[in-house]
């Protein structure tokens, strides 16, 4: 058995230094995914740098009307936060649609973003998987396809990103603040995760040692009218087959603005920009929602075992936007 070292840095700069010096090192947050992957033999870090007590565990107001979420805020606390619940209800709902009460208590905001796919082949070291073992092949493409991606996949990998929270953050134009070997930067959540291409082992654009310190939520006043809808194989405590996060601004029956992202369909949270462009300025009707969904999904390349995800995604989108259109609209006095 390999030896495992454990270190607790005093600040972010020291944490980055520790990882830069340890190519086989990893950051430890709540551990709910990493510890499991270590037990499965999927990852074998030689060093864990504990960052849970290093970054902020608070949600704070920003001068521009947005919010800053500390990287260590537990999923439970974020879901229950009064500012999140009133200003960005879709984020609270997405968090509560994921995992279990116990896991949400331990899992952190940054850890949720960086969790690995739950593709059964990725988690089973006896099978071929390009994400786990580059060049070994993809067992899913000709295997169990039910949970796999229908958008943006490659011949190397058809895994999906499992986070619900990240889908809401992608819809809300959130960004992550990082500090790493090359300094600090800010990355939109929609650009944090990658499509698999021919490097499916790279989940995100982060370099080794780059640490997420916070998530920034910009002001989006009409996000008070926002919701998350998730379809899965059991009523609770399961990953999405398809999910959608959306905020909708309807005025006089016309779509003034809309944000929508899909989960369970791609290697990353799938921001539906084509749908958003198609809908702006059109009457908020089920027919228009369906046509916009079709426009977004026209680029899909499903496998025989997951083609059901296309009508499912279309129906989830239409139902979600119809529900939002029926909600008390943003700007309408109570």
């Amino acid at each position: 058995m390999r030896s495992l070292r454990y270190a607790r840095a005093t600040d972010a700069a020291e944490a980055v230094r520790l990882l830069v010096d340890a190519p086989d090192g990893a950051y430890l947050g709540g551990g709910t995914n990493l510890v499991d992957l270590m037990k499965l033999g999927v990852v074998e870090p030689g060093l864990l740098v504990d960052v849970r007590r290093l970054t902020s565990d608070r949600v704070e107001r920003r001068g521009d009307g947005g919010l800053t979420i500390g990287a260590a805020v537990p999923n439970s606390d974020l879901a229950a936060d009064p500012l999140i619940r009133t200003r960005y209800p879709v984020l609270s709902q997405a968090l509560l649609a994921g995992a279990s009460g116990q896991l949400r208590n331990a899992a952190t905001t940054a850890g949720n973003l960086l969790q690995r796919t739950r593709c059964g082949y990725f988690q089973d070291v006896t099978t071929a998987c390009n994400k786990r073992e580059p060049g070994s092949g993809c067992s899913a493409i000709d295997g169990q396809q039910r949970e796999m991606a229908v958008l943006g996949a490659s011949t190397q990998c058809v895994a999906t990103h499992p986070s619900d929270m990240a889908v809401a953050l992608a819809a809300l134009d959130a960004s992550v603040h990082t500090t790493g070997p090359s300094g600090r930067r800010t990355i939109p959540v929609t650009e944090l995760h990658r499509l698999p291409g021919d490097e499916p082992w790279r989940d995100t654009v982060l370099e080794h040692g780059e640490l997420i310190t916070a998530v920034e939520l910009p002001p989006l006043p009409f996000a008070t009218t926002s919701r998350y809808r998730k379809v899965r194989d059991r009523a609770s405590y399961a990953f999405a087959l398809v999910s959608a996060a959306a905020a909708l601004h309807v005025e006089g029956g016309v779509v003034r603005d809309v944000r929508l992202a899909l989960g369970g369909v791609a290697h990353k949270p799938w921001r539906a920009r084509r749908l958003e462009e198609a809908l702006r300025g059109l009457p908020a009707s089920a027919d228009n929602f369906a046509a916009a969904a079709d426009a977004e999904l026209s680029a899909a390349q499903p496998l025989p075992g997951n083609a059901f995800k296309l009508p499912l995604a279309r129906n989830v989108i239409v139902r979600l936007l119809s529900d939002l259109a029926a909600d008390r609209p943003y700007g309408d006095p109570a």
Partner: protein
Amino acid sequence: MDIEIAVRVDGADHRLTVDARTTVLDLLRERLGVTSPKKGCDHGQCGACTVLLDGRRVNSCLALAVAHDGAQIVTAAGLAATAEPADGDGLHPVQRAFVERDAFQCGYCTPGQVVSAVGMLREAAAGWPSAVSVPGDEGTVVLDEAEVRERMSGNLCRCGAYANIVPAILDAARR
């Protein structure tokens, strides 16, 4: 790598050296002989290992002991001491409700169910919403069967004793 840590488990202080990969669950069961948390799946899927870690319910199988140096841990075996008022039979009100409602069959998941329920009732009392709560209803949680089922979905019972577990928890919530 061996690291010295201190933990308080069910009111008793311990200081010991653990390998970095030791989970809180293995620390409790294999090192300290506290066997009320159970190793069901060992992957955070079944909830049988649930403990209160610094007051919050978590899966102890996914928590590394070294990351929780100085933690206060309460297991099912130590729950009664946390209850107010203390029960004459040495049972926490949630445990008493499980006995009265016959809320178990083989009993293997029960310590995790009971600890999880205690943590869940605290979360509900604090106004934390769930996936079945009505959005916009901030600050108050009215526990009903749907709320209990959703909030307890991280605890699986292979005997299927849910039909009695849910009423037991609702009984305890009303006390």
